[in-house]
């Protein structure tokens, strides 16, 4: 196994079994029979049981439970935390399509050949270097506090809006690189075939290269999408009077000196991110299976 990054691009992993089910948690159990499954179940119960036993009987368990797992605090804070999480959902659902659009534009700009397009190529490269090189939280902070402070007529003054813009700017750079890798992975013979038929450079990119490239990079794009879902929490630092889930939890935590609300936020994120992660894995596996079946995607 190893090299998950390479596998994503279909580079490594030449010797995977034909059914392509290597990365599954339960895979090693296949073919072990009833006895194997029984041993797995028994050892799981023993290990988990011991962990829970020692956790509960540790001297700090009572404090821990009070600090992080307070039922009363959860009931008090969770409705508001959950309600605020709608903003997180709104942020990533609206940001994602915009990011996909900007990033594709950047990737195409960067892939253009010929001296005429040098300025576009340069511009795209500078943009990508800049925003890939900056911590997302810094971009969000700078825009979220900085732009409203300028009071430019006609510009929104809410911190969350500029934080949201910061996320879009930052993620567009990452996603552009994913697209570019996809574009670069399309064999030059495809371009040659299209150009030989009389298609222009632009038509070739549009009809032949980009459709194949996008299909190929769906799983890595999904990974960036998951990262974006989580990073909506960064907007907490600039969202002020429009708190998203994490900030809402912080408000409760600061008032009650209890971390349970934060755990509530964590729960909200997990409910969204774990299914997305599973879905991405499923996509990756499907692609691998199709590749092994000889499909060229």
């Amino acid at each position: 196994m190893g090299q998950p990054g390479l596998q994503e691009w279909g580079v490594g992993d030449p010797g995977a079994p034909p059914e392509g089910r290597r990365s599954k948690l339960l895979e090693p159990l296949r073919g072990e029979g009833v006895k194997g499954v029984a041993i797995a179940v028994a050892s799981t119960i023993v290990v988990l049981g011991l962990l829970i036993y020692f956790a509960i009987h540790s001297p700090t368990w009572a404090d821990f439970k009070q600090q992080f797992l307070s039922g009363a605090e959860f009931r008090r804070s969770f409705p508001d935390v959950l309600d605020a999480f709608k903003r997180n959902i709104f942020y990533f659902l609206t940001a994602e399509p915009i990011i996909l659009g900007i990033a594709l534009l950047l990737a195409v700009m960067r892939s253009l050949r010929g001296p005429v397009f040098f300025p576009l190529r340069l511009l795209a490269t500078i943009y990508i270097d800049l925003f890939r090189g900056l911590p997302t939280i810094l971009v969000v902070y700078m825009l979220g506090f900085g732009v409203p402070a300028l009071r430019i007529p006609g510009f929104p003054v809410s911190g969350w809006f500029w934080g949201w813009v910061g996320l879009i700017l930052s993620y567009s750079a990452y996603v552009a690189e994913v697209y570019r890798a996809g574009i670069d992975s399309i064999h030059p013979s495809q371009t040659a075939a299209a150009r030989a038929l009389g298609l222009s450079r632009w038509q070739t990119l549009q009809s032949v290269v980009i459709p194949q490239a996008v299909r190929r990079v769906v799983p890595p794009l999904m990974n960036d999408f998951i990262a974006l879902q989580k990073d909506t929490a960064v907007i907490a630092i600039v969202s002020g009077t429009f708190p998203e889930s994490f900030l809402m939890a912080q408000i409760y935590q600061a008032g009650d000196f209890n971390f349970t609300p934060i755990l509530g936020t964590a729960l909200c994120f997990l409910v969204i991110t774990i299914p997305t992660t599973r879905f991405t894995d499923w996509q990756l596996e499907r692609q691998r299976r199709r590749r092994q079946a000889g499909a060229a995607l």
Partner: protein
Amino acid sequence: MSEALRIDGVHKRFGELEVLKGIDLRVDEHEVVCLIGASGSGKSTLLRCIDLLEPVNAGSVLIRGRDVTAKGIDQNEVRRQVGIVFQSFNLFPHMTVLRNVTLAPTRVLGKGRSDADSDAHTLLARFGLDDKAGEYPDRLSGGQQQRVAIVRALAMEPSVLLLDEITSALDPELVAEVLDVIRELAAQGMTMVIATHEMAFARDVANRVCFLDDGRILEEGPPDRIFSEPTNERTRRFLDRIIAAGRM
């Protein structure tokens, strides 16, 4: 006979390596010219230069009397007139067979979708492929894929068709079906320049055979003469090797 293609003193370099060292070639309308020679002799490069997929360093390529290597020539417009089929098929894997064939007629010639579709169906039927119109290329055998690639090139109604070792990537039992298509095209008067290692086929289909060696055409003439009494020593040695390998 009128001239379909003329190549005058074409040189092509890749960095330090000079692959074509002054090629002169004239192809008449309805003529079939086969290029033979060892791998690396410049056959493929010559075809790619004719289709402007590679810029030439010196010399010129004239298609129906027009210098297409001159400055200010619309290369896309030239490529519409010249069809090329590659060794590795290069079908578009994300499109059905039908869409592979209609892409260029619709996008480049501006044909309507339904016109292009019916023309494509006619062409596919002519080569026994109409039942594959809705399939994706990865569901087809190599021979079928190559025939689709030929149909795709023909759909642009090229004045010259270039074939670049189109059977080299095929399993032996699939070669015949592709060569039959070319024979049929030759019989119908399609002007073709064919780079090939299939000597029996070249002998059969070509009006003229050119032997390329180290970027030059060393010998050319009717296939019967080239294959039975080559005058050039290198041609003779090349053909001896081919015979020794059981390829002729």
